């Protein structure tokens, strides 16, 4: 009897992992989703010049950032900027950059920031980066972490040099950099 009872108890014991992590691969990039939400908000609080308000609203990602690309791609299927549909593009090289509305430069590609700044000088492109210090080196918006929280630095004068008008609400929420 005790032996048989033990069989039952052991069977119950094997049921030990009730919850599976909410991700299929080894990690889920919650930061990418948060960045996508920020980026969509930038399109609401920043105004592009009128000649940029027709056709597709293009976001280019320079180099690899699959998680962000995937999130922006999902966003592009459900959101628009006024009447403009999103076009999310992976850009292999700085030579392939063609005046997107937003150019996102991931950390791993940040050495190309200077080239991007030169190439896009005077163009209506919001350059967004994610490495400490880059808002002082040419990007208008730079994602940073404060504690565990994702925030963004805003260099308003750089944004204005690209013909972009920044709403005061965005300034209020940003870490301002001059």
């Amino acid at each position, binding site marked *: *009897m005790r032996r*048989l*009872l033990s*069989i*039952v*108890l052991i*069977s*119950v*014991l*094997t*049921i*030990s*992992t*009730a*919850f*599976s*992590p*909410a*991700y299929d691969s*080894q*990690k*889920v*990039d*919650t*930061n990418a*989703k*948060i960045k*996508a*939400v*920020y980026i*969509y*908000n930038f399109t*609401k*609080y920043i105004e592009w010049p009128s000649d940029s308000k027709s056709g597709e609203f293009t976001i280019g990602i320079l180099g690899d950032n699959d998680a962000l690309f995937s999130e922006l791609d999902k*966003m592009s299927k*459900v*959101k628009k900027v006024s009447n403009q549909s999103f076009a999310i593009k992976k850009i292999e090289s700085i030579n392939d950059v063609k005046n997107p509305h937003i150019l996102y430069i991931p950390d791993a590609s940040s050495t190309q920031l200077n080239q991007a700044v030169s190439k896009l000088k005077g163009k209506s492109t919001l350059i967004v980066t994610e490495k400490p210090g880059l808002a002082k080196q040419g990007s208008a918006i730079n994602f940073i*972490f404060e*504690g*565990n*929280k*994702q925030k963004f630095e805003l260099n308003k004068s750089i944004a204005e040099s690209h013909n972009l008008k920044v709403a005061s*609400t*965005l300034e209020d*929420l940003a870490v301002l950099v001059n």
Partner: protein
Amino acid sequence: MKKLIYIALLLLFGNSLIGQNKLTNALYSLKNNELDKAKLLIDAAAEDTLFQDKAATWYYRGFIYKNLFKENESSNKQSPLRSKSIEYFKKSLEIEPEGTYAESTKKGMTFLAQTIYNHSATSFDPENYELAISNYELYKEVMSIVEPESDFKSKDVMFNLALATTYGRIAEEDEDSTKRATFTDKAKELYEEVLKMDPNNISANYNLGIIYYNEGVEIVNNMDYSLDLFELNAVQDRIIELFKESLPYMKKAYELNPKRRETLIGLQGIYFSLNDIEKSEAFKKELEALDNEGNTATTPTKQSQEAPQDTKLQDEAK
């Protein structure tokens, strides 16, 4: 058991003026394995004022019902015959807590309690979990009568884990988000209870870590892209809180078993979500090292409910 029947028959013959009565007839039928007839006779005896205050009457009534349960309702998880049998055994013990029949009565009750326990253990699924709960409570109730000093702590731990697993399945599979949240909370409470009894329980620690982590991830996954920046700020505060809440449980699970693949994946994910990339990478390296050692454990997946099948019990009262 047969010996007990013979003794009972002798005693009853000796004490009866008629020499034969409802109880002795019931015992003859029982001896001849005529259970249905024995039932009718013992039921009648139990109604008779001559027998209804005798422990023997209720013991044999319990015994006959127990055998009927074994023959007819052993797979019925809510067997009325078993319930009746327990009721009659209890009455026998109430009349004579330490008498001739006490030991055999307790054996019979123990047997029935084990079948109830098994029926509880085989009911941990989203459709039948309430039966698992009621049967486990009944098992404890019966065993507390048989052995008043019973300590159920280790069984409570296992029961809570199994039930929490079931709640986890409901929380993961149900389409109703309110129901999902409710069952996640219920599972959380059960794991917390387990940790009160057994702070080093690896499953409870791991699962609590995952629950809090998943709650954070789910909030992020459900965020609308047009979420206002002020709200995004508040959402970030909430998810960071959840990730931080998950961390001590997952760290404890790691401390208890640093070679458990699921835990390493969990810690990697939690630190990544907390933007502590350095620590996330450190656990990623540990995971790679573990994989290189040839550990073949799979990534965590939804656990199937492996309820024991065909668990047959020997009748100790035979």
